[in-house]
Protein backbone atom coordinates (compact mmCIF):
# COMPACT_ATOMS: atom_id res chain seq x y z
CA UNK A 1 0.00 0.00 0.00
CA UNK A 2 2.78 2.39 0.95
CA UNK A 3 4.46 1.85 -2.44
CA UNK A 4 1.24 2.75 -4.22
CA UNK A 5 0.76 5.84 -2.05
CA UNK A 6 4.33 6.96 -2.76
CA UNK A 7 3.83 6.41 -6.46
CA UNK A 8 0.59 8.44 -6.47
CA UNK A 9 2.40 11.29 -4.71
CA UNK A 10 5.43 11.19 -7.06
CA UNK A 11 3.23 10.89 -10.15
CA UNK A 12 0.98 13.78 -9.10
CA UNK A 13 4.00 15.98 -8.31
CA UNK A 14 5.37 15.27 -11.79
CA UNK A 15 2.12 16.51 -13.31
CA UNK A 16 2.29 20.28 -12.86
CA UNK A 17 -1.34 20.82 -13.85
CA UNK A 18 -2.56 18.51 -11.10
CA UNK A 19 -0.38 20.32 -8.57
CA UNK A 20 -1.84 23.65 -9.73
CA UNK A 21 -5.35 22.24 -9.53
CA UNK A 22 -4.89 21.01 -5.99
CA UNK A 23 -2.96 23.92 -4.49
CA UNK A 24 -3.43 27.05 -6.61
CA UNK A 25 -6.93 26.69 -8.08
CA UNK A 26 -8.79 26.69 -4.71
CA UNK A 27 -6.97 29.82 -3.53
CA UNK A 28 -7.65 31.57 -6.81
CA UNK A 29 -11.35 30.68 -6.80
CA UNK A 30 -11.69 31.58 -3.11
CA UNK A 31 -10.20 34.99 -3.85
CA UNK A 32 -12.70 35.50 -6.67
CA UNK A 33 -15.56 34.40 -4.41
CA UNK A 34 -14.28 36.81 -1.76
CA UNK A 35 -14.57 39.73 -4.17
CA UNK A 36 -17.87 38.53 -5.65
CA UNK A 37 -19.60 37.94 -2.32
CA UNK A 38 -17.68 40.40 -0.17
CA UNK A 39 -18.60 43.95 0.85
CA UNK A 40 -19.20 46.17 -2.14
CA UNK A 41 -18.35 49.88 -2.27
CA UNK A 42 -20.97 50.38 -4.96
CA UNK A 43 -23.07 53.53 -4.46
CA UNK A 44 -26.61 53.25 -5.83
CA UNK A 45 -28.12 55.98 -7.98
CA UNK A 46 -31.75 56.94 -7.36
CA UNK A 47 -33.82 59.21 -9.56
CA UNK A 48 -36.43 61.46 -7.92
CA UNK A 49 -38.85 64.17 -8.98
CA UNK A 50 -37.84 66.66 -6.33
CA UNK A 51 -40.89 68.91 -6.58
CA UNK A 52 -43.39 66.07 -6.19
CA UNK A 53 -41.71 64.60 -3.13
CA UNK A 54 -41.95 65.62 0.52
CA UNK A 55 -38.97 67.83 1.38
CA UNK A 56 -37.88 65.82 4.48
CA UNK A 57 -37.73 62.61 2.39
CA UNK A 58 -35.53 64.34 -0.21
CA UNK A 59 -33.21 65.49 2.57
CA UNK A 60 -33.19 62.03 4.15
CA UNK A 61 -32.34 60.42 0.79
CA UNK A 62 -29.49 62.87 0.26
CA UNK A 63 -28.07 61.92 3.65
CA UNK A 64 -27.92 58.22 2.69
CA UNK A 65 -25.10 56.52 0.79
CA UNK A 66 -26.78 57.32 -2.53
CA UNK A 67 -26.35 59.39 -5.65
CA UNK A 68 -29.61 61.30 -6.06
CA UNK A 69 -30.50 62.39 -9.58
CA UNK A 70 -33.22 64.95 -10.16
CA UNK A 71 -35.77 64.02 -12.83
CA UNK A 72 -38.37 66.03 -14.69
CA UNK A 73 -42.02 65.28 -14.13
CA UNK A 74 -42.24 63.56 -17.54
CA UNK A 75 -39.23 61.35 -16.82
CA UNK A 76 -40.66 60.36 -13.45
CA UNK A 77 -44.01 59.48 -15.05
CA UNK A 78 -42.24 57.44 -17.76
CA UNK A 79 -39.90 55.77 -15.25
CA UNK A 80 -39.54 52.48 -17.16
CA UNK A 81 -38.62 54.23 -20.41
CA UNK A 82 -36.15 56.44 -18.54
CA UNK A 83 -34.48 53.42 -16.91
CA UNK A 84 -34.10 51.70 -20.28
CA UNK A 85 -32.18 54.71 -21.56
CA UNK A 86 -30.27 55.43 -18.35
CA UNK A 87 -29.05 52.15 -16.95
CA UNK A 88 -26.67 53.90 -14.55
CA UNK A 89 -29.81 54.80 -12.53
CA UNK A 90 -30.79 51.90 -10.26
CA UNK A 91 -34.20 53.05 -9.07
CA UNK A 92 -36.74 55.84 -9.61
CA UNK A 93 -39.05 57.01 -6.86
CA UNK A 94 -42.31 58.51 -8.04
CA UNK A 95 -45.35 59.76 -6.16
CA UNK A 96 -48.98 59.90 -7.23
CA UNK A 97 -52.20 60.81 -5.42
CA UNK A 98 -53.78 57.41 -6.00
CA UNK A 99 -51.04 54.85 -5.50
CA UNK A 100 -48.65 56.69 -3.21
CA UNK A 101 -44.96 56.00 -3.59
CA UNK A 102 -43.69 53.69 -6.35
CA UNK A 103 -40.11 52.47 -6.75
CA UNK A 104 -39.28 51.35 -10.28
CA UNK A 105 -36.13 49.34 -11.07
CA UNK A 106 -34.59 47.99 -14.26
CA UNK A 107 -34.74 44.33 -13.13
CA UNK A 108 -34.76 42.31 -9.91
CA UNK A 109 -31.10 42.35 -8.96
CA UNK A 110 -28.75 42.86 -6.04
CA UNK A 111 -27.98 46.34 -7.37
CA UNK A 112 -31.67 47.27 -7.19
CA UNK A 113 -32.01 45.64 -3.77
CA UNK A 114 -29.14 47.74 -2.44
CA UNK A 115 -30.86 50.93 -3.69
CA UNK A 116 -34.12 49.83 -2.02
CA UNK A 117 -32.31 49.18 1.28
CA UNK A 118 -30.93 52.73 1.21
CA UNK A 119 -34.37 54.19 0.39
CA UNK A 120 -35.90 52.21 3.28
CA UNK A 121 -33.17 53.48 5.58
CA UNK A 122 -33.97 57.05 4.51
CA UNK A 123 -37.67 56.51 5.26
CA UNK A 124 -36.90 54.90 8.61
CA UNK A 125 -34.79 57.91 9.57
CA UNK A 126 -37.92 60.10 9.14
CA UNK A 127 -39.83 57.97 11.60
CA UNK A 128 -37.52 56.59 14.31
CA UNK A 129 -40.38 54.53 15.78
CA UNK A 130 -40.48 52.45 12.58
CA UNK A 131 -36.81 51.67 12.72
CA UNK A 132 -36.14 47.91 12.99
CA UNK A 133 -32.94 46.58 14.48
CA UNK A 134 -32.02 43.03 13.59
CA UNK A 135 -29.99 40.88 15.87
CA UNK A 136 -28.79 37.28 15.47
CA UNK A 137 -27.71 34.48 17.78
CA UNK A 138 -24.78 33.86 15.45
CA UNK A 139 -23.34 36.45 13.07
CA UNK A 140 -24.04 40.14 12.67
CA UNK A 141 -26.31 42.27 10.52
CA UNK A 142 -23.46 43.85 8.61
CA UNK A 143 -21.51 40.67 7.76
CA UNK A 144 -20.90 40.06 4.08
CA UNK A 145 -22.26 37.19 2.04
CA UNK A 146 -18.72 35.79 1.93
CA UNK A 147 -18.76 35.63 5.72
CA UNK A 148 -22.14 33.90 5.69
CA UNK A 149 -21.41 31.35 2.95
CA UNK A 150 -17.63 31.06 2.89
CA UNK A 151 -17.68 27.74 4.76
CA UNK A 152 -19.60 26.13 1.88
CA UNK A 153 -16.73 26.83 -0.49
CA UNK A 154 -14.22 25.24 1.87
CA UNK A 155 -16.27 22.06 1.75
CA UNK A 156 -16.81 22.24 -2.02
CA UNK A 157 -13.12 22.69 -2.87
CA UNK A 158 -11.84 19.97 -0.58
CA UNK A 159 -14.29 17.57 -2.21
CA UNK A 160 -14.48 18.61 -5.83
CA UNK A 161 -10.83 19.05 -6.77
CA UNK A 162 -9.66 15.84 -5.12
CA UNK A 163 -12.59 13.98 -6.68
CA UNK A 164 -11.61 15.13 -10.17
CA UNK A 165 -7.92 14.31 -9.79
CA UNK A 166 -8.38 10.92 -8.16
CA UNK A 167 -11.23 9.88 -10.46
CA UNK A 168 -9.19 10.73 -13.53
CA UNK A 169 -6.06 9.06 -12.17
CA UNK A 170 -7.97 5.82 -11.65
CA UNK A 171 -9.58 5.97 -15.08
CA UNK A 172 -6.12 6.51 -16.58
CA UNK A 173 -4.87 3.55 -14.58
CA UNK A 174 -7.57 1.37 -16.11
CA UNK A 175 -7.42 2.66 -19.67
CA UNK A 176 -3.60 2.56 -19.75
CA UNK A 177 -3.58 -1.09 -18.68
CA UNK A 178 -1.52 -0.37 -15.56
CA UNK A 179 -4.40 -1.44 -13.30
CA UNK A 180 -4.41 -4.91 -14.82
CA UNK A 181 -0.64 -5.08 -14.50
CA UNK A 182 -0.85 -3.82 -10.93
CA UNK A 183 -3.36 -6.50 -10.07
CA UNK A 184 -1.09 -9.18 -11.52
CA UNK A 185 1.30 -8.46 -8.65
CA UNK A 186 0.68 -9.76 -5.11
CA UNK A 187 -0.99 -6.49 -4.03
CA UNK A 188 -4.41 -6.96 -2.41
CA UNK A 189 -7.44 -5.23 -3.90
CA UNK A 190 -8.10 -3.32 -0.69
CA UNK A 191 -4.50 -2.11 -0.69
CA UNK A 192 -5.01 -0.53 -4.12
CA UNK A 193 -7.86 1.62 -2.83
CA UNK A 194 -6.08 2.39 0.46
CA UNK A 195 -2.88 3.27 -1.40
CA UNK A 196 -4.75 5.71 -3.59
CA UNK A 197 -6.55 7.16 -0.58
CA UNK A 198 -3.30 7.59 1.35
CA UNK A 199 -1.50 9.12 -1.63
CA UNK A 200 -4.18 11.68 -2.35
CA UNK A 201 -4.78 12.02 1.39
CA UNK A 202 -1.36 13.66 1.70
CA UNK A 203 -2.37 16.26 -0.88
CA UNK A 204 -5.73 16.65 0.85
CA UNK A 205 -4.06 17.50 4.17
CA UNK A 206 -1.78 20.12 2.58
CA UNK A 207 -4.67 21.50 0.53
CA UNK A 208 -6.92 21.75 3.59
CA UNK A 209 -4.25 23.58 5.60
CA UNK A 210 -3.61 25.99 2.71
CA UNK A 211 -7.30 26.73 2.12
CA UNK A 212 -8.15 27.21 5.78
CA UNK A 213 -5.14 29.41 6.56
CA UNK A 214 -5.69 31.49 3.42
CA UNK A 215 -9.41 31.94 4.10
CA UNK A 216 -9.01 32.89 7.72
CA UNK A 217 -5.79 34.89 7.75
CA UNK A 218 -5.78 36.45 4.27
CA UNK A 219 -9.46 36.70 3.31
CA UNK A 220 -10.46 37.24 6.96
CA UNK A 221 -13.27 34.69 6.86
CA UNK A 222 -14.63 34.64 10.37
CA UNK A 223 -14.46 31.42 12.36
CA UNK A 224 -15.84 31.15 15.86
CA UNK A 225 -14.66 27.59 16.59
CA UNK A 226 -11.37 25.73 16.57
CA UNK A 227 -9.99 25.56 13.02
CA UNK A 228 -8.42 22.18 13.84
CA UNK A 229 -11.90 20.64 13.52
CA UNK A 230 -12.35 22.41 10.19
CA UNK A 231 -9.08 20.89 8.97
CA UNK A 232 -10.07 17.42 10.16
CA UNK A 233 -13.44 17.69 8.43
CA UNK A 234 -11.85 18.86 5.18
CA UNK A 235 -9.38 15.98 5.20
CA UNK A 236 -12.16 13.45 5.88
CA UNK A 237 -14.20 15.03 3.10
CA UNK A 238 -11.22 14.76 0.73
CA UNK A 239 -10.70 11.11 1.70
CA UNK A 240 -14.36 10.50 0.88
CA UNK A 241 -13.78 12.32 -2.41
CA UNK A 242 -10.97 9.90 -3.35
CA UNK A 243 -13.26 6.91 -2.76
CA UNK A 244 -16.10 8.71 -4.54
CA UNK A 245 -13.81 9.40 -7.51
CA UNK A 246 -12.71 5.76 -7.53
CA UNK A 247 -16.32 4.57 -7.49
CA UNK A 248 -17.31 6.92 -10.32
CA UNK A 249 -14.26 5.87 -12.36
CA UNK A 250 -15.69 2.35 -12.52
CA UNK A 251 -18.46 3.73 -14.73
CA UNK A 252 -16.14 5.80 -16.93
CA UNK A 253 -13.77 4.54 -19.58
CA UNK A 254 -12.02 7.84 -20.26
CA UNK A 255 -11.16 11.07 -18.50
CA UNK A 256 -13.78 12.85 -20.62
CA UNK A 257 -16.44 10.54 -19.22
CA UNK A 258 -15.47 11.52 -15.66
CA UNK A 259 -16.11 15.13 -16.65
CA UNK A 260 -19.41 14.11 -18.26
CA UNK A 261 -20.51 12.65 -14.92
CA UNK A 262 -19.96 15.90 -13.03
CA UNK A 263 -23.55 17.13 -13.66
CA UNK A 264 -24.86 13.92 -12.08
CA UNK A 265 -22.40 13.61 -9.22
CA UNK A 266 -21.08 17.00 -8.18
CA UNK A 267 -23.57 19.69 -9.25
CA UNK A 268 -26.48 18.28 -7.15
CA UNK A 269 -24.15 18.20 -4.16
CA UNK A 270 -23.36 21.90 -4.65
CA UNK A 271 -27.08 22.70 -4.24
CA UNK A 272 -27.34 20.60 -1.10
CA UNK A 273 -24.13 21.85 0.44
CA UNK A 274 -25.70 24.74 2.32
CA UNK A 275 -25.73 27.41 -0.40
CA UNK A 276 -29.53 27.14 -0.33
CA UNK A 277 -31.16 26.53 3.09
CA UNK A 278 -32.45 22.94 2.97
CA UNK A 279 -35.73 23.92 4.69
CA UNK A 280 -36.62 26.10 1.72
CA UNK A 281 -36.40 23.23 -0.77
CA UNK A 282 -39.96 22.02 -1.56
CA UNK A 283 -41.43 18.48 -1.34
CA UNK A 284 -38.97 17.57 1.44
CA UNK A 285 -36.27 17.25 -1.23
CA UNK A 286 -33.88 18.70 1.31
CA UNK A 287 -33.72 15.19 2.80
CA UNK A 288 -31.73 14.11 -0.25
CA UNK A 289 -28.80 15.88 1.37
CA UNK A 290 -28.33 12.90 3.70
CA UNK A 291 -27.06 10.80 0.78
CA UNK A 292 -24.57 13.46 -0.29
CA UNK A 293 -21.13 13.49 1.34
CA UNK A 294 -20.64 17.23 0.89
CA UNK A 295 -23.63 17.83 3.17
CA UNK A 296 -21.85 16.15 6.12
CA UNK A 297 -18.64 18.07 5.48
CA UNK A 298 -20.36 21.43 4.97
CA UNK A 299 -22.59 20.96 8.03
CA UNK A 300 -19.59 20.14 10.25
CA UNK A 301 -17.54 23.07 8.89
CA UNK A 302 -20.51 25.41 9.38
CA UNK A 303 -20.97 24.12 12.92
CA UNK A 304 -17.37 24.93 13.81
CA UNK A 305 -16.97 28.20 11.91
CA UNK A 306 -20.40 29.75 12.43
CA UNK A 307 -21.69 28.24 15.71
CA UNK A 308 -18.34 27.56 17.37
CA UNK A 309 -19.11 23.83 17.71
CA UNK A 310 -16.55 21.36 19.01
CA UNK A 311 -16.15 17.62 18.54
CA UNK A 312 -19.18 16.79 20.70
CA UNK A 313 -21.44 18.73 18.36
CA UNK A 314 -19.98 17.64 15.02
CA UNK A 315 -19.03 14.00 15.66
CA UNK A 316 -22.20 12.78 13.94
CA UNK A 317 -21.22 14.50 10.70
CA UNK A 318 -17.66 13.20 10.93
CA UNK A 319 -19.02 9.69 11.52
CA UNK A 320 -21.23 10.17 8.44
CA UNK A 321 -18.14 10.92 6.35
CA UNK A 322 -16.22 7.96 7.79
CA UNK A 323 -19.15 5.60 7.10
CA UNK A 324 -19.48 6.99 3.59
CA UNK A 325 -15.76 6.38 2.95
CA UNK A 326 -15.97 2.86 4.37
CA UNK A 327 -18.98 1.94 2.22
CA UNK A 328 -17.27 3.31 -0.89
CA UNK A 329 -14.09 1.40 0.06
CA UNK A 330 -16.08 -1.85 0.16
CA UNK A 331 -17.77 -0.99 -3.13
CA UNK A 332 -14.45 -0.18 -4.79
CA UNK A 333 -12.72 -3.36 -3.65
CA UNK A 334 -15.69 -5.31 -5.04
CA UNK A 335 -15.47 -3.37 -8.30
CA UNK A 336 -11.80 -4.37 -8.65
CA UNK A 337 -12.93 -8.00 -8.77
CA UNK A 338 -13.65 -7.28 -12.40
CA UNK A 339 -9.86 -7.28 -12.90
CA UNK A 340 -8.88 -9.97 -10.43
CA UNK A 341 -11.16 -12.32 -8.54
CA UNK A 342 -8.73 -12.86 -5.67
Amino acid at each position, binding site marked *: MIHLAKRVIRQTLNDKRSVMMIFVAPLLILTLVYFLLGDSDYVSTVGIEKDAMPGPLVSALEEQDLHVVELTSDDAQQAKEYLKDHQQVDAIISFSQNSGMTITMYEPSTKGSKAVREIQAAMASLNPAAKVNLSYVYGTQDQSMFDSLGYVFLALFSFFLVFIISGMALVRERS*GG*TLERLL*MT*PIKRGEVILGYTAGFGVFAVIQAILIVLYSIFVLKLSSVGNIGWVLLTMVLLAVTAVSFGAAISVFASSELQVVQMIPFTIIPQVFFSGLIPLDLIPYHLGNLSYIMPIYYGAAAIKGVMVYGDGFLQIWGYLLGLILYSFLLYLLNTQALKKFRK*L
Partner: protein
Amino acid sequence: MDIVVSHVSKRFVQKQVIKDVTFAIPAGEICCLLGPSGSGKTTLIRLMIGAIPADQGTIEIGGVQIPNMNMLEKIGFMPQNDALYDDLSAEANLRFFGGLYHMEKVKLEKRINEVLAMVDLKEHEKKLVKNFSGGMKKRLSLAVAILHSPEILFLDEPTAGIDPVLRRKIWEQFQDIKNAGTTIIVSTHVMDEVTECDKAALIYNGSLIEYDSVTNLLQKTQNGRVEELFFSASSNSMGGASQ
Protein backbone atom coordinates in the same frame (compact mmCIF):
# COMPACT_ATOMS: atom_id res chain seq x y z
CA MET B 1 7.45 -24.49 -13.69
CA ASP B 2 5.20 -26.31 -16.10
CA ILE B 3 1.74 -25.20 -17.13
CA VAL B 4 -1.22 -27.49 -17.72
CA VAL B 5 -4.31 -26.13 -19.45
CA SER B 6 -7.20 -28.62 -19.36
CA HIS B 7 -10.41 -28.22 -21.37
CA VAL B 8 -10.59 -24.46 -20.80
CA SER B 9 -13.49 -22.50 -22.27
CA LYS B 10 -14.42 -18.85 -21.93
CA ARG B 11 -17.42 -16.92 -23.20
CA PHE B 12 -17.90 -13.13 -23.23
CA VAL B 13 -21.63 -12.32 -23.45
CA GLN B 14 -22.56 -13.70 -26.86
CA LYS B 15 -19.17 -14.84 -28.10
CA GLN B 16 -17.35 -18.05 -27.24
CA VAL B 17 -13.80 -16.71 -27.12
CA ILE B 18 -11.93 -19.85 -26.00
CA LYS B 19 -13.23 -23.28 -26.94
CA ASP B 20 -12.15 -26.34 -24.97
CA VAL B 21 -8.40 -25.70 -25.12
CA THR B 22 -6.06 -28.34 -23.68
CA PHE B 23 -2.27 -28.35 -23.77
CA ALA B 24 0.76 -28.58 -21.44
CA ILE B 25 3.94 -26.50 -21.51
CA PRO B 26 7.05 -28.07 -19.95
CA ALA B 27 9.15 -26.00 -17.59
CA GLY B 28 12.03 -23.97 -19.02
CA GLU B 29 10.74 -23.74 -22.57
CA ILE B 30 9.51 -20.91 -24.77
CA CYS B 31 5.98 -21.58 -25.95
CA CYS B 32 4.49 -19.41 -28.61
CA LEU B 33 0.73 -18.73 -28.80
CA LEU B 34 0.40 -18.08 -32.49
CA GLY B 35 -2.72 -16.83 -34.21
CA PRO B 36 -4.28 -13.97 -36.15
CA SER B 37 -5.61 -10.88 -34.35
CA GLY B 38 -8.82 -11.64 -32.47
CA SER B 39 -8.17 -15.38 -32.32
CA GLY B 40 -8.21 -15.44 -28.50
CA LYS B 41 -4.49 -15.31 -27.61
CA THR B 42 -4.81 -12.44 -25.13
CA THR B 43 -7.85 -14.03 -23.48
CA LEU B 44 -5.94 -17.29 -23.13
CA ILE B 45 -3.03 -15.46 -21.48
CA ARG B 46 -5.41 -13.63 -19.13
CA LEU B 47 -6.96 -16.97 -18.20
CA MET B 48 -3.52 -18.51 -17.60
CA ILE B 49 -2.38 -15.72 -15.26
CA GLY B 50 -5.70 -15.76 -13.42
CA ALA B 51 -6.89 -12.27 -14.41
CA ILE B 52 -10.21 -13.75 -15.53
CA PRO B 53 -11.81 -17.03 -14.46
CA ALA B 54 -12.46 -19.84 -16.93
CA ASP B 55 -16.09 -20.87 -17.49
CA GLN B 56 -14.98 -24.47 -17.77
CA GLY B 57 -11.75 -26.40 -17.32
CA THR B 58 -8.71 -25.82 -15.13
CA ILE B 59 -5.28 -24.23 -15.38
CA GLU B 60 -2.39 -25.36 -13.21
CA ILE B 61 1.04 -23.80 -12.88
CA GLY B 62 3.60 -25.99 -11.10
CA GLY B 63 0.73 -28.15 -9.83
CA VAL B 64 -1.11 -25.14 -8.28
CA GLN B 65 -4.53 -24.30 -9.61
CA ILE B 66 -4.91 -20.78 -10.99
CA PRO B 67 -6.00 -18.21 -9.85
CA ASN B 68 -3.77 -18.28 -6.80
CA MET B 69 -2.53 -15.28 -4.87
CA ASN B 70 0.86 -16.83 -3.94
CA MET B 71 1.51 -17.73 -7.55
CA LEU B 72 1.42 -14.03 -8.50
CA GLU B 73 4.85 -13.69 -6.83
CA LYS B 74 6.25 -16.17 -9.35
CA ILE B 75 4.55 -14.86 -12.47
CA GLY B 76 5.83 -12.06 -14.67
CA PHE B 77 3.38 -10.40 -17.05
CA MET B 78 3.98 -8.04 -19.93
CA PRO B 79 0.64 -6.79 -21.28
CA GLN B 80 0.00 -5.97 -24.93
CA ASN B 81 -0.06 -2.23 -24.27
CA ASP B 82 2.99 -0.98 -22.42
CA ALA B 83 1.12 -0.38 -19.13
CA LEU B 84 3.71 1.99 -17.68
CA TYR B 85 3.35 5.23 -15.71
CA ASP B 86 4.18 8.02 -18.14
CA ASP B 87 4.64 10.62 -15.41
CA LEU B 88 7.36 8.58 -13.72
CA SER B 89 10.93 7.90 -14.78
CA ALA B 90 11.99 4.44 -15.95
CA GLU B 91 13.72 3.88 -12.64
CA ALA B 92 10.66 5.01 -10.63
CA ASN B 93 8.45 2.63 -12.60
CA LEU B 94 10.76 -0.26 -11.77
CA ARG B 95 11.09 0.81 -8.13
CA PHE B 96 7.30 0.92 -7.78
CA PHE B 97 6.68 -2.53 -9.24
CA GLY B 98 9.64 -3.95 -7.29
CA GLY B 99 8.04 -2.65 -4.11
CA LEU B 100 4.80 -4.44 -4.93
CA TYR B 101 6.77 -7.72 -5.10
CA HIS B 102 8.17 -6.97 -1.63
CA MET B 103 11.74 -6.94 -2.94
CA GLU B 104 14.17 -5.74 -0.29
CA LYS B 105 15.86 -2.44 -1.00
CA VAL B 106 19.43 -3.58 -1.73
CA LYS B 107 18.30 -6.47 -3.90
CA LEU B 108 15.87 -4.20 -5.72
CA GLU B 109 18.57 -1.60 -6.50
CA LYS B 110 20.84 -4.31 -7.86
CA ARG B 111 18.06 -5.87 -9.90
CA ILE B 112 16.94 -2.49 -11.33
CA ASN B 113 20.48 -1.94 -12.61
CA GLU B 114 20.59 -5.46 -14.05
CA VAL B 115 17.29 -5.28 -15.93
CA LEU B 116 17.94 -1.75 -17.21
CA ALA B 117 21.27 -2.95 -18.59
CA MET B 118 19.59 -6.01 -20.05
CA VAL B 119 17.05 -3.94 -22.02
CA ASP B 120 19.67 -1.32 -22.88
CA LEU B 121 17.99 1.56 -21.04
CA LYS B 122 20.57 2.27 -18.34
CA GLU B 123 21.44 5.70 -19.70
CA HIS B 124 17.73 6.65 -19.84
CA GLU B 125 16.80 5.56 -16.32
CA LYS B 126 16.06 9.09 -15.07
CA LYS B 127 13.97 10.11 -18.08
CA LEU B 128 10.20 10.31 -17.74
CA VAL B 129 8.52 7.49 -19.66
CA LYS B 130 6.34 9.99 -21.56
CA ASN B 131 9.52 11.03 -23.38
CA PHE B 132 10.33 7.45 -24.44
CA SER B 133 9.92 6.09 -27.98
CA GLY B 134 7.59 3.12 -28.60
CA GLY B 135 10.51 0.71 -28.67
CA MET B 136 11.96 2.04 -25.42
CA LYS B 137 8.58 1.64 -23.73
CA LYS B 138 8.35 -1.98 -24.92
CA ARG B 139 11.81 -2.70 -23.50
CA LEU B 140 10.99 -1.02 -20.21
CA SER B 141 7.73 -2.98 -20.03
CA LEU B 142 9.76 -6.16 -20.45
CA ALA B 143 12.15 -4.99 -17.72
CA VAL B 144 9.18 -4.51 -15.36
CA ALA B 145 7.93 -8.02 -16.15
CA ILE B 146 11.27 -9.71 -15.39
CA LEU B 147 12.29 -7.46 -12.49
CA HIS B 148 11.34 -9.90 -9.72
CA SER B 149 13.00 -12.82 -11.54
CA PRO B 150 9.75 -14.70 -12.18
CA GLU B 151 9.77 -18.43 -12.72
CA ILE B 152 7.21 -18.07 -15.45
CA LEU B 153 6.84 -15.16 -17.85
CA PHE B 154 3.77 -14.24 -19.90
CA LEU B 155 4.38 -11.85 -22.78
CA ASP B 156 1.38 -10.59 -24.75
CA GLU B 157 2.43 -9.47 -28.24
CA PRO B 158 5.78 -8.11 -27.01
CA THR B 159 7.09 -7.34 -30.47
CA ALA B 160 3.96 -5.76 -31.99
CA GLY B 161 4.85 -2.52 -33.76
CA ILE B 162 8.59 -3.05 -33.27
CA ASP B 163 11.11 -2.68 -36.09
CA PRO B 164 12.99 -5.84 -37.21
CA VAL B 165 16.32 -4.87 -35.64
CA LEU B 166 14.82 -4.25 -32.21
CA ARG B 167 12.66 -7.34 -32.58
CA ARG B 168 15.79 -9.43 -33.11
CA LYS B 169 17.30 -7.89 -29.99
CA ILE B 170 14.18 -8.54 -27.91
CA TRP B 171 14.10 -12.20 -28.95
CA GLU B 172 17.74 -12.54 -27.94
CA GLN B 173 16.73 -11.26 -24.51
CA PHE B 174 13.94 -13.84 -24.34
CA GLN B 175 16.48 -16.56 -25.07
CA ASP B 176 18.72 -15.26 -22.26
CA ILE B 177 15.77 -15.25 -19.85
CA LYS B 178 14.85 -18.79 -20.91
CA ASN B 179 18.46 -19.93 -20.44
CA ALA B 180 18.24 -18.63 -16.86
CA GLY B 181 15.49 -21.22 -16.28
CA THR B 182 12.32 -19.20 -16.84
CA THR B 183 9.35 -20.67 -18.70
CA ILE B 184 8.11 -18.17 -21.28
CA ILE B 185 4.70 -17.99 -22.90
CA VAL B 186 4.63 -15.44 -25.67
CA SER B 187 1.71 -14.53 -27.89
CA THR B 188 2.30 -13.21 -31.39
CA HIS B 189 0.60 -12.91 -34.73
CA VAL B 190 3.93 -12.69 -36.56
CA MET B 191 4.26 -16.15 -38.06
CA ASP B 192 8.05 -15.94 -38.56
CA GLU B 193 8.57 -15.64 -34.81
CA VAL B 194 7.52 -19.24 -34.31
CA THR B 195 11.05 -20.37 -35.17
CA GLU B 196 12.32 -18.65 -32.03
CA CYS B 197 10.19 -20.91 -29.81
CA ASP B 198 10.47 -24.47 -28.59
CA LYS B 199 6.78 -25.18 -28.80
CA ALA B 200 3.88 -23.46 -30.51
CA ALA B 201 0.14 -23.47 -29.88
CA LEU B 202 -1.76 -22.40 -32.98
CA ILE B 203 -4.98 -20.62 -32.00
CA TYR B 204 -7.70 -19.96 -34.51
CA ASN B 205 -11.18 -18.65 -33.65
CA GLY B 206 -10.66 -19.57 -29.99
CA SER B 207 -9.73 -23.19 -30.74
CA LEU B 208 -6.35 -24.84 -30.47
CA ILE B 209 -5.77 -26.17 -33.97
CA GLU B 210 -2.22 -27.48 -33.41
CA TYR B 211 0.13 -27.85 -30.49
CA ASP B 212 3.55 -29.41 -30.90
CA SER B 213 7.23 -28.67 -30.98
CA VAL B 214 8.10 -26.13 -33.63
CA THR B 215 10.26 -28.68 -35.46
CA ASN B 216 7.34 -31.10 -35.74
CA LEU B 217 4.91 -28.35 -36.74
CA LEU B 218 7.16 -27.17 -39.56
CA GLN B 219 7.50 -30.75 -40.80
CA LYS B 220 3.73 -30.84 -41.23
CA THR B 221 3.97 -28.03 -43.79
CA GLN B 222 4.98 -28.36 -47.44
CA ASN B 223 7.30 -25.36 -47.70
CA GLY B 224 8.26 -24.80 -44.06
CA ARG B 225 5.86 -21.91 -43.44
CA VAL B 226 3.51 -22.21 -40.50
CA GLU B 227 0.84 -20.10 -42.25
CA GLU B 228 -0.12 -23.19 -44.21
CA LEU B 229 -1.52 -24.77 -41.06
CA PHE B 230 -3.80 -21.74 -40.57
CA PHE B 231 -4.86 -21.79 -44.23
CA SER B 232 -6.00 -25.38 -43.91
CA ALA B 233 -7.79 -24.60 -40.61
CA SER B 234 -9.44 -21.61 -42.26
CA SER B 235 -10.57 -23.59 -45.32
CA ASN B 236 -11.87 -26.38 -43.08
CA SER B 237 -13.98 -23.95 -41.05
CA MET B 238 -15.27 -22.22 -44.21
CA GLY B 239 -16.06 -25.61 -45.70
CA GLY B 240 -17.89 -26.52 -42.51
CA ALA B 241 -19.80 -23.26 -42.66
CA SER B 242 -20.84 -23.74 -46.26
CA GLN B 243 -22.12 -27.23 -45.49
